[in-house]
């Protein structure tokens, strides 16, 4: 009986020890803006699974929160259970956890830690100056894992049918192309006019072509508003007005609620669509079988300080919260997302432009690959959250005024006057 008691005690001790040991397994929490079933979600999930296999003492809990991820993050932080990872657009990460001082600065890790199966530091697998675009207050809040470049998209089959020649390099050639297309009773430009940040693209590209890379961004942050006196901004809006006045936008574009415009474009109701490189995957089910994606950069303008191969770019990234108890481990997982094999999957399956160098683009991006070879710079995108742009200023000042010009309710001259006055007032209120 005594022996039995001893055996029972021993078993009990072993059971308690095994539970304690099992609980020692480190757990990381990954909060994502992707929903279950999306291509990107699948790639991230597989990458995490592969990493767990290499790190069996770690468990990664995954929360696929979808686009309401920020509300979920707020709740988790308020409940005192912040996640270790949070994926979003870099600007959104800056405006949420970055400015609140809750994002881990990844720059030291990028410089110190070697890339997956490589002798290079992680930062050296990216092109030079890449991180300048997502550095806020001297800090890198996230590691970009996906990239989208902006260019004009068109269907090469339709282009050939219309008897069009070379794609336009200059603004004058672009206008000629529009005139030719319109002459054949087809809309030259398609646009989802209901989306205020899509409506920014023509003005922002033209402004930076006239006044140089990031000139518009500088003007937006110019507290005394004097930058708005630069002639390029007025010229840019005059060009936008010209497109409208000549009827180059698809009829009724003002009322196109997303995604009506891009579906019309995929169904060949119009020719040009100025948009990010996520378009091929977004319209893959709406296009005819013989649709061949072509793209070309935004044309240059006469006497402009900007160049034709300066492109805008936006990213999807993953940040680590400062509250994590395992920053080294967390970064180890993060660097797997920018390993060559994973980036190859992002390119081939999610049709993203890889963020690191030396990863070939899929055939669908053959034009884009050629454009990227000639790329001379990257400037800020103005699509609200994903762009490096003051969100409140965008929502309250820039989008409404720009839209008024595009919809023919405000003259370019009045746009410049009003944007200048409102900018001064806005920055005064932020002092």
């Amino acid at each position, binding site marked *: 009986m005594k022996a039995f008691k001893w055996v029972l005690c021993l078993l009990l001790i072993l059971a308690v020890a095994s539970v304690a040991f099992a609980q020692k397994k480190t757990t990381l929490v990954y909060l994502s803006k992707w929903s279950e079933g999306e291509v990107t979600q699948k790639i991230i999930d597989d990458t995490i699974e592969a990493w767990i296999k290499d790190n069996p003492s770690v468990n990664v809990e995954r929360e696929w929160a979808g686009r309401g991820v920020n509300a979920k993050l707020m709740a988790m932080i308020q409940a005192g259970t912040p996640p270790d990872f949070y994926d979003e657009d870099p600007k959104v990460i800056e405006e949420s956890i970055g400015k609140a001082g809750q994002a881990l600065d990844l720059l030291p890790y990028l410089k110190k830690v070697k890339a997956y199966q490589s002798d290079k530091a992680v930062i050296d697998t990216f092109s030079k100056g890449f991180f300048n675009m997502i550095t806020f207050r001297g800090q890198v809040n996230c590691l970009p894992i996906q990239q989208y470049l902006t260019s004009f998209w068109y269907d090469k089959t339709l282009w050939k049918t219309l008897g069009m020649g070379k794609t336009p390099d200059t603004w004058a050639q672009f206008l000629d192309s529009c005139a030719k297309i319109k002459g054949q009773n087809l809309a030259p430009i398609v646009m989802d006019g209901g989306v205020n940040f899509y409506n920014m693209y023509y003005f922002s590209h033209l402004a930076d072509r006239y006044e140089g890379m990031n000139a518009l961004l500088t003007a937006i942050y110019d507290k005394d508003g004097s930058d708005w006196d630069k002639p390029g901004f007025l010229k840019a809006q005059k060009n936008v007005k010209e497109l409208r006045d000549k009827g180059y936008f698809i009829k009724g574009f003002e*009322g196109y609620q997303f995604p009506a415009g891009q579906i019309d474009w995929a169904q060949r109701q119009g020719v040009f669509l100025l948009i990010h490189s996520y378009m091929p995957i977004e319209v893959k089910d709406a296009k005819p079988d013989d649709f061949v994606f072509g793209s070309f950069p935004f044309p240059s303008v006469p006497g402009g300080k900007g160049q034709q191969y300066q492109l805008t770019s936006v990213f999807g990234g993953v940040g680590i919260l400062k509250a994590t108890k395992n920053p080294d481990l967390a970064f180890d997982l993060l660097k797997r997302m920018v390993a060559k094999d994973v980036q190859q999957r992002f390119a081939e399956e999610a049709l993203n432009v890889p963020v690191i160098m030396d990863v070939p683009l899929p055939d669908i991006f053959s034009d884009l690959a050629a454009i990227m070879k000639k790329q001379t710079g990257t400037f800020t995108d103005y699509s609200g959250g994903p762009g490096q742009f003051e969100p409140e200023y965008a929502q309250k000042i820039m989008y409404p005024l720009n839209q008024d010009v595009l919809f023919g309710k405000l003259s370019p001259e009045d746009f410049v006057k009003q944007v200048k006055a409102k900018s001064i007032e806005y920055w005064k209120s932020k002092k």
Partner: protein
Amino acid sequence: MRTRKRIILLLVPALILYLGLFIYPTVRAFWVALHNWTGFTAKMEWVGLANFAELWKDDLYWRSLLTTLKIIFLGGGAIFVLAFLFTFFLTSGIRGKKVYRAVIFYPNVVAPIALATFWGFIYNPRFGLLNGLLRSLGLESWTQTWTGPDLVFWSVLAALVWTYVGFYMVMLMSGVDKIPPDFYDAARIAGASRPQIFFRIVIPMIWDVLVIAIVLWIIISIKMFDFMFAFSGGLAAPMEIWTNALYMFMLTFGQRVAIYRMGYGTAVAVTMLVMVIVFSGIVRLLMRREKIEF
């Protein structure tokens, strides 16, 4: 005495839940509105009434308030006129009353997100049902960009009226059904016409139901969000249909345009609560009548 104690004891859990889930968040909202806060940190910066002062000068707030008011008054006006008309016809002894009532009520059983998408297809400038119908009738010149900046509010308002009219019709009809048939018989014998019966008997006798229906519509209008949000595919609703609720959402949870001003957004929410209290109070005051018992 023991029974009273037992009742109180039974009410305590419900009271605690009510205080915790409704009263506390409401009081807390007033507190949050007095701070600068992103929602991503525990730290809130006290700004006093500065958020309200900023609202006073915020064009977009006033614009969204105007849209909300237009929905309350114009939308409400249309809904109640139509609901009364349907009630009038459906209570006039028409055959197939239940079928008509079910058909008119039907939009209320569909999720607003689905309804908004459905109306988006109806109004689509190119392949939409509305323009298609006009074209098929040879009325090409009548086709419009229904979702363009000039018409989008009216298009959405029409969709809202279509959506909600059935609900208010059913509410009014439930009141009408309770009126004893003797009243109608007596009125007919006295020589009253149908409109006279409707205005002199039906309306006074469903007055309480009408007051509740109007207050309910005001509350629904002030927090109108989902339809507007979904109408644009959830990406960026046109400014012409921004309501106070939508504007509050944009200021606090941002989404595509990353504005995280929880304190300022909560100030908008506080004004919405005040609006509900003020409007409900006014309606109850203006529509106060001696209760008719039957």
